[in-house]
């Protein structure tokens, strides 16, 4: 168990900056998920922590010690690779025990610990097999066993579940969570899958373009996305975003027909100007057309998800998704109204993408 601190960490390839000055503190025993689209620098960040990638600028500290110049083995981190990277010519037992063999641990001690890890991962039956004779899920377990046996200070996972099928992925997700609860080792998990991030993380770090967009618990990230990027990236279906103008009286105006009251709370005010309004599909409700305060729209198509369905509506070329658990008898072309609770509205600055909070009069007077 160890804490990790990143101080203004940068990674550049020639003139190309991949990670721009990143600060992050990971507490001992925490499960951190780094989430972001491909190419956002999240894997590079992980590889810098483990020591496979040089740090161009800044410092990485593990347990308060700067590890910039240390070899991977000296950092006592273990990594699970996306393609598992099992040694193809070794048996499962040899794969798991390799790190101990390199470290000069005696054969009997090695065997004992390999068995122990294999039991914890339920792969005892395959110890004599070669990786080529294993299924994807079994290989995944072996890769985790190889990381576990070293009893590392930090576990690093580089999209380890992306090669598994959907069912197995959910099972392995639960398994990783269970293992973390049991071992309590500080873990950093990189993924582009928001479901993995939401279910696994104590805290999520959302990255985009080599920068951190937001750090927070899954609930914080979901309920209060800090930037327009986070708002659009998390949630399935993606948050509905529309650009418009905020009027001084607290009305969001997209055009003449689409006007939304923002906050009903007295004393709140929004800074005026151009803004992006976001509403989660789950937060919008379908109502009968023509209701006051409801936005008029036309049903475009309906996605059936079993337990719920997503109604995609269209108002004059702008598409909008509404998730609903009841079964409205709607067909494409029907006229509906959309009602949005002002409390479920997220606002972002049009230019910077920063979240706009309603400010109370008191706060503006006494900052």
């Amino acid at each position: 168990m160890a804490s990790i601190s990143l101080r203004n960490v940068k990674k550049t390839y020639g003139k190309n900056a991949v990670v721009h000055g990143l600060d992050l503190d990971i507490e001992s025993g925490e499960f951190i998920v780094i989430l972001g689209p491909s190419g956002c620098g999240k894997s590079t960040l992980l590889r810098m922590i483990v020591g496979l990638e040089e740090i161009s600028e800044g410092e990485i500290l593990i347990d308060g010690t700067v590890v910039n110049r240390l070899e991977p083995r000296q950092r006592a981190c273990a990594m699970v690779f996306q393609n598992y990277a099992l040694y193809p010519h070794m048996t499962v037992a040899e794969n798991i025990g390799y790190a101990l063999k390199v470290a000069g641990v005696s054969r009997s001690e090695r065997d004992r610990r390999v068995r122990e890890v294999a039991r914890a991962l339920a792969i005892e039956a395959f110890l004599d097999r070669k990786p080529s004779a294993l299924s994807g899920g079994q290989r995944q377990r072996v890769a985790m066993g190889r990381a576990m046996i070293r009893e590392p200070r930090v576990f690093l996972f580089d999209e380890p579940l992306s090669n598994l099928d959907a069912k197995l992925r959910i099972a392995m997700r639960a398994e990783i969570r269970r293992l973390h609860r049991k071992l309590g080792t500080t873990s950093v998990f990189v993924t582009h899958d928001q479901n993995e991030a939401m279910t696994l993380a104590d805290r999520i770090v959302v990255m985009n373009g080599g920068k951190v967009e937001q750090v927070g618990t899954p609930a914080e990230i979901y309920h209060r996305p800090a930037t327009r990027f986070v708002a659009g990236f998390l949630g399935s279906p993606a948050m509905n975003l529309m650009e418009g103008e905020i009027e001084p009286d607290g009305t969001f105006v997209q055009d003449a027909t689409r006007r939304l009251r923002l906050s009903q709370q007295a004393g709140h005010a929004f800074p005026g100007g151009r803004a992006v309004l976001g509403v989660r599909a789950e937060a919008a409700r379908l109502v009968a057309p023509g209701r006051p305060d409801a936005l008029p729209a036309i049903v475009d198509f309906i996605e059936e998800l079993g337990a719920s369905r997503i109604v995609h509506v269209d108002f004059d070329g702008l598409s909008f998704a509404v998730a609903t658990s009841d079964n409205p008898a709607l067909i494409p072309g029907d006229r509906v109204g959309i009602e949005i609770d002002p409390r479920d509205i997220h606002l972002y600055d049009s230019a910077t993408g920063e979240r706009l909070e309603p400010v109370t009069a008191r706060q503006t007077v006494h900052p």
Partner: protein
Amino acid sequence: MVERTPVFNILCYLILTLGLAVALLPFAIVLIAATHDLKAVNTVPLPLVPGTHFWENMSAAWTRAHLGSKLLHSLIFATSVAAGKVALSSMAAYSIVYFRFPGRILIFWLIFVTLMLPLEVRIVPTYSIAANALQPFQTLLDVSGLTWLADTVFGLRIRLEWGLLNSYTGLILPLVATATGTFLYRQFYLTVPDELAEAAKVDGAGSFRFFLDMLLPLSRANMIALFTIMFVWSWNQYLWPLLITTDPEFGIAVTELKTLIPSEFGLPDWNVAMAGTLAIMSPPLLLVILMQRWFVRGLISTEK
């Protein structure tokens, strides 16, 4: 996809059979001629059935060409060259593929260029180096005037000499460097996923450990193929051993074969010559036959 018809099949088999016959006929002649006596081997046409004099021909060839010691020399020579080539090329390719150092590209191209300079082309300088391996240093000292200086000031005569003629070192070393083998290994290393090297690194293996524990076992099929090819190649070397082994006691089997070939006015005992030929060509033949199973195993193995 070519459509298979009986006529096409027969045609294919016919061509293949012809090719096989052309390839095997020389072997058959060697085998048959080695079993006849002097009279039968000189009849025209040569009998097509083997005779009964194989063992006496063989023992005659064996004693006349000192095959006992010569075959041993050949075996040591070919095995060392092949093993040396495998060791050197695996390590040379390892350094080129896995390490970033200044001059890496230059060294790669230098190795590449040696492909265009086979031993036959550089035989004179190579021989002169083998005659005195320290010759280049002596030349350097001579040219820089250090020899003269030592001679006049201290009365010291500098003569660096390390003769490699008639030694295994001289026979083997110049043949060990191989661009082909280095390329073979380079191509193989490039197919090894980077993640494997990274996983080994995280597991704590240093570069030498990774080479021994990962690359060598993974390249087993590669290694066997290279060793077999290079063993046969070295076994059949003629020019270099002929030059470097001036001592008749030292020579290798292939160069010694010429003593068995009947001279223009001598006894035309081709039966003995063929028996000697058979004895000399058997070891590489056996090796190829034995290693073929490993080749196939290496090729069908999915663990890569």
